[in-house]
């Protein structure tokens, strides 16, 4: 500023000097007067400059003073704002800390989940609802069955051509402290006294993948199709081999899984492990007999007093030896063997039924003439159960065979008191997902959910199955061959329309032929008429 003013002053003098006429042309007095005038002007300019400098200083001081003298109100407000800001920061810190400890709620196609903040505890709430329509085609086989006075095991209430609730289950499962898994699954679909109100209720301490301890009520690890989830099977009902194994049982099982060399095993809580390359299960259960289901259909009634006689020992090994092998077409191949042994004491026998129609075709209460009392399983009993599946892309094959041997006893007669019965059953099924999705043991997940307005229709799987059950001929030394069939062969075809991961519409047709199980007018053994059933299901599972 000062520099500028000096420059301006010099310019003014120069301009003034430029205005002086030629010295030689003016007299000396005029010159002197002119110089005085200029000096006077210069003096005035100096005074002006001094005043300007003073003004500058005063201005600066004023600005300074303005800054220094903040009013008390402003200072108070500033402190208030600072305090409020800080309080908000502290509140944020506290809230963020508290939020981190809150459980995580998650709702999606896997059900509803509540997980603790440290992820060590979880509860999942799911459900399965199956509504079926069963329609018998042709002759009604029920009319042919010589119904006795006994009502044991009849599913008369299901009957032909009915709409009924097959399952209405609530699934509560999860884990506590990371390793302790649990599942409680009540089923409200059936209300009769033979209903299976609580199919699953177990705790699995899966501390190590190599050895977990499963305790409670669960599916004993014997039949392959039985171990497949209800929502994941390719057909509405399982085939004959499942009838020669227990449905559910109560007991203890040690199980474990191992990965292929170089691959870590995965935790697979519960009785089903199809994740790992090599798995085993060894269990001790109450022993419910073929088709048995404790508290579901009256079994078990084994009254043996010693532990060895009133428990069933079962074991299963299953391998998927090509997992991660690089042989893509073989990676989904699994093969296994299971078996069981027990020594029941006068245990109730369950009737045998057709898969889809659920019609009874072996009845241990319909005795042969000359046999009286009750027929029970009494003595050594064992099963052997080879099984395999192979899934590759949309294609899937599954097969199993079972030979179930048990000692039968007729309590009220001495004529044929004991026989050894070996019933056999087998099934082979093939399925194909025509919409291209992967076919797996754990079902099919549509690539595109059902949404016709957007041109997506879900996934469609087609399936076919052959299944057969042979009853040991010695059985008919005790039961009436005109009232129980000695062989049943079922052919089933089905279509499964997966609307999305959770909703499924099924349609199955089954043809079952029988050997024996009826009588002619003359009283000799005749083949029971074949059974044809068309059945549909709408299922929601999450």
């Amino acid at each position, binding site marked *: 500023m000062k520099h500028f003013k000096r420059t301006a002053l010099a310019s003014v003098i120069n301009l003034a000097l430029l205005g002086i006429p030629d010295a030689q042309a003016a007299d000396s007095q005029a010159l002197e007067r002119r110089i005085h005038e200029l000096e006077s002007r210069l003096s005035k300019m100096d005074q002006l400059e001094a005043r300007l400098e003073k003004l500058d200083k005063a201005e600066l001081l004023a600005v300074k003073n303005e800054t220094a003298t903040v009013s008390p109100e402003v200072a108070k407000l*500033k*402190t208030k704002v*600072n*305090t409020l*800001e*800080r*309080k908000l920061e*502290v509140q944020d*810190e*506290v809230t963020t*800390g508290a939020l981190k*400890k809150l459980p995580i709620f998650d709702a999606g196609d896997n059900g509803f989940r509540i997980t603790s903040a*440290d992820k060590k505890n979880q509860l999942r709430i799911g459900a399965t609802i199956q509504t079926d329509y069963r329609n018998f085609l042709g002759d009604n086989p029920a009319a042919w069955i010589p119904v006795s006075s006994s009502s044991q095991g009849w599913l008369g209430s299901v009957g032909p051509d009915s709409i009924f609730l097959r399952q209405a289950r609530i699934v509560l499962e999860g884990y506590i402290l990371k390793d302790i898994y649990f599942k409680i699954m009540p089923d409200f679909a059936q209300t009769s006294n033979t209903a299976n109100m609580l199919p699953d209720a177990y705790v699995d301490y899966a501390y190590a993948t190599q050895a977990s301890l499963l305790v409670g009520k669960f599916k004993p690890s014997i039949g392959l199709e039985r171990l497949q989830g209800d929502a994941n099977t390719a057909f509405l009902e399982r085939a004959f081999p499942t009838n020669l194994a227990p449905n559910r049982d109560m007991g203890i099982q040690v199980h474990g899984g191992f990965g292929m060399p170089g691959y870590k095993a995965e935790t697979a809580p519960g009785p089903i492990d199809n994740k790992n390359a090599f798995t085993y299960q060894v269990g001790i259960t109450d022993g419910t007999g073929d088709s048995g289901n404790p508290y579901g259909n009256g079994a078990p009634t084994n009254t043996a007093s010693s532990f060895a006689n009133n428990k069933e020992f079962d074991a299963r090994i299953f391998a998927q030896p090509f997992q991660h092998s690089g042989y893509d077409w073989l990676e989904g191949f699994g093969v296994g063997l299971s078996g069981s042994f027990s020594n029941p004491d006068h245990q109730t026998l369950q009737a045998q039924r057709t898969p889809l129609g659920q019609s009874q075709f072996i009845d241990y209460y319909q005795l042969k003439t000359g046999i009286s009392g009750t027929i029970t399983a009494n003595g050594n009993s064992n099963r052997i159960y080879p099984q395999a599946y192979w899934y590759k892309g949309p294609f899937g094959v599954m097969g199993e065979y079972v030979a179930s041997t048990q000692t039968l006893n007729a309590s009220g007669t001495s004529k044929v008191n004991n026989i050894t019965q070996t019933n056999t059953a087998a099934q082979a099924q093939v399925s194909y997902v025509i919409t291209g999705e992967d076919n797996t043991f754990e079902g099919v997940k549509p690539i595109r959910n059902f949404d016709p307005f957007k041109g997506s229709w879900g996934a469609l799987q087609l399936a076919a199955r052959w299944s057969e059950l042979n009853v040991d001929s010695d059985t008919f030394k005790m039961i009436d061959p005109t009232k129980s069939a000695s062989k049943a062969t079922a052919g089933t075809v089905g279509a499964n329309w997966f609307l999305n991961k959770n909703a499924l519409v099924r349609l199955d047709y089954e043809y079952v032929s029988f050997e024996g199980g009826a009588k002619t007018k003359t009283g000799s053994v005749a083949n029971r008429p074949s059974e044809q059933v068309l059945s549909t299901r709408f299922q929601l599972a999450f």
Partner: protein
Amino acid sequence: MKNNFLNSLLAAVLAVLAANHADAADINLLNVSYDPTREFYKEYNPVFAKYWKAKTGDNVTVNQSHGGGGKQARAVLEGLEADVVTLALAYDVDQLHQKRKLIPENWQSLLPNNSSPYTSTIVFLVRKGNPLGIKDWNDIVKPNVSIVTPNPKTSGGARWNFLAAWGYALKHNNNDEAAAKVFVTQLFKNAAVLDTGARGATTSFVEREIGDVLITWENEAYLVLREFGADKYEIITPSLSILAEPPVAVVEDVARKHGTTEVATEYLKYLYSKEGQDLIGKHFYRPTDPEISAKYAKQFKSLQLIKIDQFGGWNEAQKKFFADDGVFDEIYAPGK
């Protein structure tokens, strides 16, 4: 011949050195501590690492975690895998045994001085010139005095603050607890903000310029003078305060799992060494070693110090004053 011998010797020495180098283990420790110890452990950790390297050849890296003492103890209880804890008060450490058996019951007897390698106390920090003329506890409960202290629910230091005030009130009111309650009620009525830890309270007072008085650890007050300038703040030592004995412990359950029990124990034991104690004094904590204590005696003003025993020990004090529905909940309501 001579050259061959020297070459062989050199090769052997190099081989031994290389072998030693190859055997050196890399160890990581986690020290979960309270708020104001950041600077101290930042300097102590490399000193210990150097000592441990010289002793064993192993490389030890100590990671630090700091926060309000109570909050830190809860974090360890909830799964933070601390090899050692160096907290503000014994109650918080004791919870690690009481609630999860992470440390043995006799943890306090495993190291000298009840496992407290240093002591400290509670003082006031005011703005330069002490504009409100604060001299003692009774000055900071006056109306229109704005104080800053952390929340006793989350901060160990804040609990020491509370008990020091309570002790002062009892002394000046013939041990009348009702009067003491009125005293601390007024004190917390003057609290502008309750931070979750001592360092947060320092931030409020120094950086946000909130409050007239900061009630804080002695070492924290000196640290403020050093970091922010003695021309801006003054330390006021009240006539009475409390003897704070911040304890340390190896979290044996975690250390065993990590395989760090030996180094974690030595890490804490070294706090009692001359070198450790000297660093303690340097950071304005009161050393327990008599020789080092004498060296730093001049930097601490003398005052009457009451002990936690006067309150029946930490378990009793916690139950009475700081547990849910205790005295603090009774006298303090946020926003009032």
